[in-house]
């Protein structure tokens, strides 16, 4: 479990994708829906080299095309930012099972 780190106003967190096919359509939808449950601004990227994108945008999340074993990084700020990142990380860690 990667701990939540606070820096520059953001709460950070990360988790590794376990699904052998990577972040395919269905998990991407779940990720987006989970982000949307929070008032915080939530962003996600695939690994250090990736660009931060809006985790609430289904199109942006689907285009991440993150593969198996890649680390999804999250950052959030604003109202309930910690809860948002914690839930996103937990969702990836349990391989997107409801």
């Amino acid at each position, binding site marked *: 479990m990667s701990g939540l780190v606070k820096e520059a106003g953001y709460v950070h967190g990360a988790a590794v994708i376990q699904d052998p096919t990577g972040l395919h359509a269905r998990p991407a939808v779940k990720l987006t*829906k989970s982000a949307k*449950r929070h008032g915080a601004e939530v962003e996600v990227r695939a690994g250090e080299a990736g660009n931060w994108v809006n985790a609430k945008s289904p199109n942006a999340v689907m285009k991440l095309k993150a593969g198996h074993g890649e680390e999804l990084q999250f950052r959030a700020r604003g109202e309930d930012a910690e809860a948002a990142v914690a839930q996103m990380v937990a969702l990836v860690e349990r391989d997107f099972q409801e």
Partner: protein
Amino acid sequence: MSESVSIVIVSHSPQVARGAADMVREMVGEEVQVAHCGGNPAGGLGTDVMAIKSAIESVYNQKGVAILVDLGGAETNSEMAVEMLPAEMGERVVICNAPIVEGAVMAATEAAGGAPLEAVKATAEEFLS
């Protein structure tokens, strides 16, 4: 629970329409209402204005309805169906310029978070850009 924008799927084929609706329900969940219709009034390939109108009415709520269509006639018939709705209802129904299956999933995902109709339409249409 606050309402979400509903989705209507209009295909020339009843099977495609049902399949796309099933996919939305399975991928996005039950919190977004999805209606579908396909086939002409004689049961062949095509679309049916009155069936589209009923599909819209069956899932309509104050947040509005986003329609996803496949080929030309589906769009023309959907526009006709929207115009036949009472005016205050018709102005909360939009047709998305997006691929039917992908657009429906994107639109429903956006709608599930309680987004307004304009955002749902924009998200569906963004898929191709």
